[in-house]
């Protein structure tokens, strides 16, 4: 029976605490009286995954018919799936998407459906490479659909591929993939790694264009998404739900399939990452020391290769299918079952160690903007009710934050870092002054469409993701970060945790409360 997450009160006999530090690790002794939030232990995976998928497709939730009765010969079927940004880290083969899509295709074949197209729901993310598609879909699916051009990736900048479906009652443009919108049925295959994923966001965001996305991917919306992980209090989700209902009102039929994962995040050689420090066995300690010492001596390129090579053993804990909202409710409960940890009250200082990966640097480089987004956009938002840190509090993150970019994947990030952040870090000012010129830059559009680049506007979204945290926090400190990059982000660099605590005391007073978020594996803090 996996143990639930829990909050440790640090006392003198608490051993040093593990901090992620990008592609390295550190141990820090936290001050007595601090709290450490440990994630729940991984739930058991489903034993018969393929059986569970079949069961879900045959017994849908909400007012949906079982999938086989929705499939008729001569129909137009579009299967959309989450892109490379999920799950994190990429899972060991076979990927969930492969299992689900194969099950859907089996039923489509039985029903005699000929017109089937697969679309990677990229929105403005980078296109996936062939090996990445093969990993996600499996060779059987890839080889059957890719050569005939029936495996496609969304190109939101091709006016031919997009269809404007009018506006919601709030005047938000809804523009999604034309192929999907004109299909008799859209089957959307989700991997719901965190509570933010899925629901109406799948189609309304995953298949949408810049014109549509800018109605919810903006500073105002994200400052009112408290948090992103809590659909009911997230303006981002509210907007997506309006769009989703608008899409449904246009008569577009969506069969939503959502899957949840356990937090068995790291393979055996990194098992110490998923244990509480005082339970580390001699083997854990030896492997921690061997891993961390050798990583410290490894050139950073090789380190990136090693970490990006990690395939996670996490596995499916639930699968549900049917009508979007009914499905998403069950999914959210299942995500909470794995990730929710109750925490009593807010804290003055929140510390966290940032890992080597976020949704936008799979097989890529974690650049400073992504560091900010992972810390302030994602980890800060891993809460329900109230943020873990009080308003005006301090966030201390650990990450080396080198000024390193992937030239192919993140071209607009480089310019955003050098030309936008050099002038201002205020999200509202950035949005007003720079967004349009980046979003419409023909070169970024060209690279997004033909190469493997994130869209020109994507770094802006990363920064907007931080907007709620930036507004909420009194100070952000990155321990061990490259001072130049950290200052460019508008944060404060510190070389050690004690320096950082010293700096923080200017903001939160001399004897602050401190809470450490011991993630990943992921958790959601339910702050009372």
């Amino acid at each position: 029976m996996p143990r639930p997450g829990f909050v440790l009160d640090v006392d003198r006999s608490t051993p040093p605490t593990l901090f992620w530090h990008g592609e390295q690790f550190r141990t820090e002794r936290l001050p007595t009286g601090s709290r450490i939030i440990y994630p729940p232990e991984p739930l058991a995976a489903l034993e018969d995954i393929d059986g569970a998928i079949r069961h879900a497709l045959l017994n849908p939730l909400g007012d949906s018919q079982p999938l086989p009765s929705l499939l008729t010969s001569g129909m137009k079927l579009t299967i959309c799936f989450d892109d490379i940004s999920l799950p994190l880290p990429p899972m060991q083969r076979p990927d969930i998407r492969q299992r689900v899509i194969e099950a859907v295709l089996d039923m489509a074949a039985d029903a005699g459906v000929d017109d089937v197209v697969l679309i990677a729901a990229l929105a403005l993310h980078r296109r996936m490479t062939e090996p990445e598609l093969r990993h996600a879909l499996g060779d059987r699916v890839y080889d059957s659909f890719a050569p005939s051009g029936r495996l496609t990736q969304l190109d939101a900048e091709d006016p031919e591929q997009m269809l404007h479906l009018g506006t919601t009652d709030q005047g938000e443009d809804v523009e999604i993939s034309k192929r999907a919108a004109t299909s008799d049925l859209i089957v959307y295959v989700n991997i719901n790694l965190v509570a933010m994923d899925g629901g109406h966001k799948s189609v309304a965001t995953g298949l949408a264009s810049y014109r549509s996305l800018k109605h919810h991917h903006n500073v105002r919306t994200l400052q009112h998404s408290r948090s992103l992980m809590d659909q009911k209090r997230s303006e981002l989700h509210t907007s997506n739900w309006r769009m989703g209902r608008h899409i449904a009102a246009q008569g577009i039929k969506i069969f939503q399939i959502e899957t949840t994962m356990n937090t068995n995040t790291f393979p055996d050689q990194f098992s110490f990452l998923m244990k509480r420090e005082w339970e580390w066995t001699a083997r854990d300690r030896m492997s921690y020391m061997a891993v961390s010492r050798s990583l410290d001596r490894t050139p950073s390129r090789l380190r990136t290769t090693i970490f990006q090579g990690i395939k996670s053993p996490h596995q499916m804990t639930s699968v549900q299918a049917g009508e979007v909202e009914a499905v998403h409710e069950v999914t959210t409960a299942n995500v909470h079952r794995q990730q929710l940890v109750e925490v009593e009250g807010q804290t003055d200082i929140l510390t966290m160690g940032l890992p080597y990966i976020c949704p936008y640097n799979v097989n890529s480089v974690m650049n400073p903007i992504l560091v900010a987004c992972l810390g302030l956009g994602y980890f800060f938002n891993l809460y329900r009710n109230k943020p873990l840190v009080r308003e005006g509090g301090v966030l201390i993150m650990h990450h080396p934050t080198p000024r390193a970019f992937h030239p192919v994947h993140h071209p607009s990030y480089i310019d955003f870092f050098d030309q936008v952040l050099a002038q201002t870090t205020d999200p509202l000012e950035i949005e007003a002054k720079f967004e349009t010129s980046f979003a419409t830059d023909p070169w970024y559009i060209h690279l997004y469409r033909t190469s493997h680049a994130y869209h020109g506007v994507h770094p802006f979204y990363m920064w907007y993701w931080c907007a709620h945290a930036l507004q909420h926090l009194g100070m952000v400190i990155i321990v061990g970060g490259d001072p130049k990059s950290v200052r460019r982000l508008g944060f404060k660099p510190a070389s050690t945790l004690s320096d950082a605590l010293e700096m923080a005391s200017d903001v939160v007073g001399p004897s602050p409360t401190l809470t450490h978020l011991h993630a990943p594996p992921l958790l959601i803090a339910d702050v009372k």
Partner: protein
Amino acid sequence: MRLRPRARFPLGAPTWPTGVPRPPVVRDTGVNYDTAWARKYPARLARALWLDGVTRPLIKGLAAPDIDGLDRLDALPAPVIFAANHSSHVDTPLVLTSLPERFRHRTAVAAGADYFFDKRWKGGLWALSINAIPIERTRVSPQSTKLAVSLIQDGWSLVIFPEGGRSPDGWGQSHRAGAAYLAVRTGAPVVPVHLHGTRRILKKGGKGVRPSHTEVTFGRPLRAAEGESAADLAVRIERSIAVLADERSEGFWDARRNAAAGATPALTGPGPTGWRRAWALEENRRRQGTSKPWPPRSAARD
């Protein structure tokens, strides 16, 4: 108090936060040590080579055993429980090497879990070298019983010392019911074995090994009678070992007569404690000639 400063985490072991309750420790040593690997073919082969190639010649040189009563085992099918008196570490190899070929390489030894299996490396050493299995000495533990029963049912014979440990003073200790219980549970016959003289080679707490003459006597197999309790059988086993001892010193016929008259000398010796127990020990009676001068030389110089 710790003299050496403890290595710091993560090199050293982590401390346990006071606020967190410790879960019961499930250890993989002691009774929980898993010896299954030592009964796999490679381990058996290694052990057989070691037993025949090294231990047997060594025991022959060291203990010069005079083995008697093997004929009583002739018609006996495996598995068998060998129950022997116990006064020295030499007992186990002595019994094992004295067994007829057909038992020798398919016999496990019940060894005290607390003594032989408290560290993983020790457990590994004993499991490999003598096919030891961990047995709780002081109580009948379900885990060790289960293991022993399943081994016997698999056709493995078992060497067991019902006294539960080596004799502290040279006299026998009263028997525990373990061997009898297994015999009742499995229906396997119990062969009483009497060992004599091993204490002279190496006694409990003794230092150094002295070659000496030993005697090994196998008795007639005992079977649990219909409805017989383990306690009753244990008494029978104890008594038949005592008869074997008597047989060695007085001869078969006198021993039989003593047994019939209920006059077999008990192996546990006279009285509860006191000097008479030590006085009555055969080995102390023989020591006169070799005793050291008094006072010790070093003390005299002072």
